């Protein structure tokens, strides 16, 4: 598995067959967004914030209460900002929509500038081959001061790898068009959950 560099990234983005092509749309400024070995990605308009007072705990063994009770969705227009306070975790969608061919996987990571300001972009960073949709970023401010986040700014980068023997991703995170919270108690891929978790 090797990291895909700039020239190969451009080749991937321009593959003749659409189903073999790496799709990143809209790539508003290709010249500036495609780096030496990564692509800068932008913050979308949707943020999901947890209302702690309404949430007892998140436990995969118990059925979630209605997500709407403990989650607030915020839509932030372009040229407006979202304040991420120290030690606060929010979910945010990327502006770009992705479709990875089956021979490519990726990881999402912070951009250095933002990382040094205390912003952690993603904790679960893997993007599987064949993934399709916007990526939900887990934004965490580990710094000491609030950070002003503007939709459209490049806060993260995605690094691509060649992947051999990959199969198209069909999990819960696919086909999302906005920030998405995936319930811990509904994991379709884990059929043996009943074995590992206490019964209610």
């Amino acid at each position: 598995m090797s990291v895909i560099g700039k020239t190969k990234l451009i080749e991937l983005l321009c593959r003749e067959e659409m189903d073999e092509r790496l799709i990143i749309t809209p790539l508003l400024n290709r010249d500036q967004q495609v780096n030496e070995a990564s692509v800068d990605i932008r913050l979308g308009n949707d943020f999901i914030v947890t209302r702690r007072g309404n949430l007892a705990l998140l436990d995969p063994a118990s059925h979630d209460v209605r997500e709407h009770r403990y989650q607030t969705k915020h839509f932030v227009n372009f040229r407006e900002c979202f304040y991420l306070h120290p030690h606060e975790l929010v979910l945010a969608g990327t502006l770009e929509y992705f479709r990875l061919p089956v021979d490519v996987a990726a990881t999402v990571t912070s951009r250095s500038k933002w990382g040094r300001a205390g912003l952690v972009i993603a904790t679960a960073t893997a993007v599987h081959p064949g993934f399709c949709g916007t990526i939900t970023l887990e934004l965490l401010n580990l710094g000491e001061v609030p950070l002003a986040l503007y939709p459209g700014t490049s806060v993260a980068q995605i690094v691509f790898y060649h992947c051999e023997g990959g199969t198209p991703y069909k999990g819960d995170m696919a086909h999302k068009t906005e920030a998405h919270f995936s319930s811990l108690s509904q994991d379709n891929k884990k059929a043996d959950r009943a074995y590992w978790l206490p019964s209610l």
Partner: protein
Amino acid sequence: MSKSDYEPLSHLKCYAHILKDGLLQRIDELSVSDYPAMTPNQIIGFLRDFLINLSEVIEKTVSEERLKTLSSSIQGLGIFLEWLDNAHTEQTPRGLVHLLKDIIDHLIPDSQVIACPQAQYNYTIRDLGNHMKALIEYYIPYSKQGNFKKYLSSPIKLISFPRIERDNMLAHTIFGHELGHPIASDYLEAESKDNKFQEIYKKLQQQVSELVDKELEESTEDDSTRLKITTRLFKEILQIRERALEELISDAVGIFIFGPSAFFAFYELFWSSNLDAKPAPAEFYPPPRMRMRLMLDLVEKDGFNNQFSQLENNPAIASYVKTTQTFLENAERLSAVKEDQAEIESNPILKIAYDSMEASLPEAYNFAKEKTKKVSFDSSVIFSQLPELARRLELSIPPNEVGDPSNPKTVDYRATLLASWMFKLHGVSPSSGITLSSVEINQLHKLTLRAIEYVILQDDYKYHTEDKA
């Protein structure tokens, strides 16, 4: 008056203040919501300033009747709360707001748009700006009216759509029809000032007189009664004619702006209704079957059928074209039934009104076409974008761009809508081999909405960055 006497005027003032303060408080609560555009915030600012000014008006009012009117008006303003409460981004797709604003801007430059879902299954576009202006003119002293100019300098349109269809971007093409209503009003106003209308008017008068004479041939009614009947019938015929023109011009505007997608949305909206329903008071809607027939005529005349035929041999889209063509053939069969026409022919009042309307329809269509020139559906561009957009939808990619992947071109969002409609029609037909579940169709709606948002963003980004360069 002793100190403990009840004072109705004071009670009324207190009541008006409580209402006003309650409304102000609710408006403040709504001001923290996220809205897809600035207009709701501007309306909140307007209402806040209006109510603050109204406070002084209430204080200075010495008439009980006037205070009652004021209180009743404040109660009426409660409807703004419903609109604003539903206009935030969790209830209203921002792509819809931006798409409609883009089109409205071409028809009425510098318009402001607020969109919100409503419980009723109905699509409307209302002139909110005029309503707000009337509030200022009626309640605010002339010396202070100038302070509200900043809120009312551009037209403000309130767009409502059925809440149940909130995420269904494909159904929202019905707004093409709603955008047609002001154009239809303009036509009717222009027509009324035209000399030709005097001829139409005279002819209708003559036909009504003949009808009344015939109907009352053996009656002993006096001249005054005859005159009353003639006047009533004449007014009714004018109303039927006008209402038919309003709706049919609006249908045509839908086709001129959104192309075949407007017909697809119309079809879904009306398929469960009585296609041959006669025009009836008070709305006098023309029969849906007639509307379908006339829209299909426009689809043919504007060359859309021909454009579909030209794509028949393109393997990327041939199967989608086939389903769309068979859908249109099915609609043709439905519209070929002439029961609606027979109903109208058999009713002398409807016949006079509809004969007159039909004679004016070609001119009305030309008028509407001219008015929608800046936003007209450019089939030569849009149809060429469809094959690639269909492929994107097959791969669950938003249909927002086509062409050389090293330099992709943003599409016309009408192409996005048409490709999605064709994809849906294909997906609901089992013979196509691919049947979409309702979950997948919902996914299609989301992809379409996303694509429209991207198209608008990409165009705006290009415009601003190239402008600066």
